[in-house]
C-alpha cells in the first residue's frame, strides 16, 4: 500500500527513469460522437509508432529517431522510446478506431457506440 502511494506521488517525476522510457504528453477530448486522443510524439517517425489495443487500454509505443539524453541528479540517462498506456474511455466502438500522425502529434479517433431508441411523442 505504502509502496503504491509513494510510487504515485513520485511517479510523474521518475517514471521516465524507472522504465527507461519517456512518457509522452497526451490529451483526451470528448466530442458528441467520438473521443479524440492526442499524443505528443516529437522526434518520432510515423513508421516507428505502434498502437496496440486491449479490452481496457490503448498502448502507444514509439522509437525516437535520436537518443535523447537527460542530465539530472548528477547522472546522464539515455532514452530511445516513448511509451504510454491509456485507459480506454467508456462506450467506444473499438472496431472503428483510427489514427493519424501529423507534425509530431498522433491523433486517435475513437467513435462512440451510439445506442438508444426513438421515443414516440403522444
Amino acid at each position: 500500500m505504502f509502496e503504491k502511494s509513494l510510487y504515485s506521488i513520485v511517479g510523474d517525476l521518475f517514471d521516465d527513469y524507472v522504465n527507461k522510457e519517456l512518457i509522452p504528453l497526451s490529451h483526451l477530448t470528448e466530442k458528441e460522437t467520438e473521443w479524440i486522443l492526442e499524443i505528443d510524439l516529437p522526434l518520432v517517425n510515423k513508421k516507428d509508432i505502434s498502437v496496440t489495443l486491449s479490452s481496457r487500454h490503448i498502448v502507444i509505443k514509439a522509437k525516437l529517431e535520436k537518443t535523447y539524453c537527460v542530465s539530472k541528479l548528477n547522472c546522464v540517462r539515455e532514452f530511445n522510446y516513448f511509451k504510454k498506456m491509456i485507459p480506454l474511455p467508456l462506450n467506444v466502438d473499438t472496431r472503428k478506431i483510427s489514427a493519424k500522425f501529423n507534425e509530431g502529434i498522433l491523433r486517435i479517433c475513437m467513435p462512440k457506440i451510439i445506442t438508444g431508441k426513438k421515443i414516440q411523442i403522444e
Partner: protein
Amino acid sequence: MTENRPKKLEKLPTPLPILFVGIPGPGLIGILSLTYVIHALKMETIGEVEHPDLSNIIFIDNGELFGPARIYKKGSLFAVISDVPIDYTLADGFAESIIDFCKKNKIRMIIILSGLQAIERDLATLKTYGIVTDEKLEKVLYENEIPKFLSGMITGPDATILTRLKNSPIPTMILYTECNFFFPDPEAAINTIKTVSRILKTEIDITEFKKQIDFLRLQGRQLMEETLTILRPEKTQAPVTVPPIYK
C-alpha cells in the same frame, strides 16, 4: 541577405524602457519565446523577482543558485521569466512585484507573451493577437500589424495578472499567439518571436530556434504537465460563452 540575418545588437533601437514578461501558460508560448529572445539579444541576468511565495524553490546550475523568476536586461530592455507556473495564489503577488519593479525602473510599457488555444491548429494560419490596457498602445498594435483581440475570455493566472496591471499606471500589452493549448508548441512560439522582433524593430535570427524544435518539445513535457494542472480547474469552471457586456 537572408530574412533572418540579425542586425548588430549592441544598441537596440528602443529608447523606451520596456519590460517583457513570460510565464508558463498554454503551449508554453511565453517561456519558449522569451527564453529565445533573451538568448538572441544577449540579455544579462540582473536579479530575481522577490516574492515570499516564490522562495520555496531554487535551482542550481553549475554550482550557482538561481531563483525561479529572474530579471534580465540589455540597454532599456528588461525581461522577467518564470521557470515555474504562477498559480492563482501567486499571481496577485507576482503582478504586484512586477508593478513595483516597473515603478523603480521607470518602465514605460509591459509586454506579456502568452498563448491562446487554436481550435483547429494550422501552422500556416496561426495568428498573434494583442490586447492593450492603455489607448496609447493601440498605435503599437497598428504599426506592427498585430490584430486586436476583439472578443473572448481570458481565464487563469493571466486574468489575475492582467486585472492588476489594468489598474496600474503602467501601459500593458498582452500578445496571445494561437497554439496547441496542451502540448509545448515551439512552432507557434516562432510567431511570438517574430512579433517581438517587429515591435523592437530588430531582426531576431530564428534559425537556431527552428533546429531545436523537437528537443524543446521533449524538454517542456514536465513543465507543460505542471502548467496544465494550474490551468485546467479554472478552465472547466469558466463560462462557455461571453456574457453581454453593457457599456
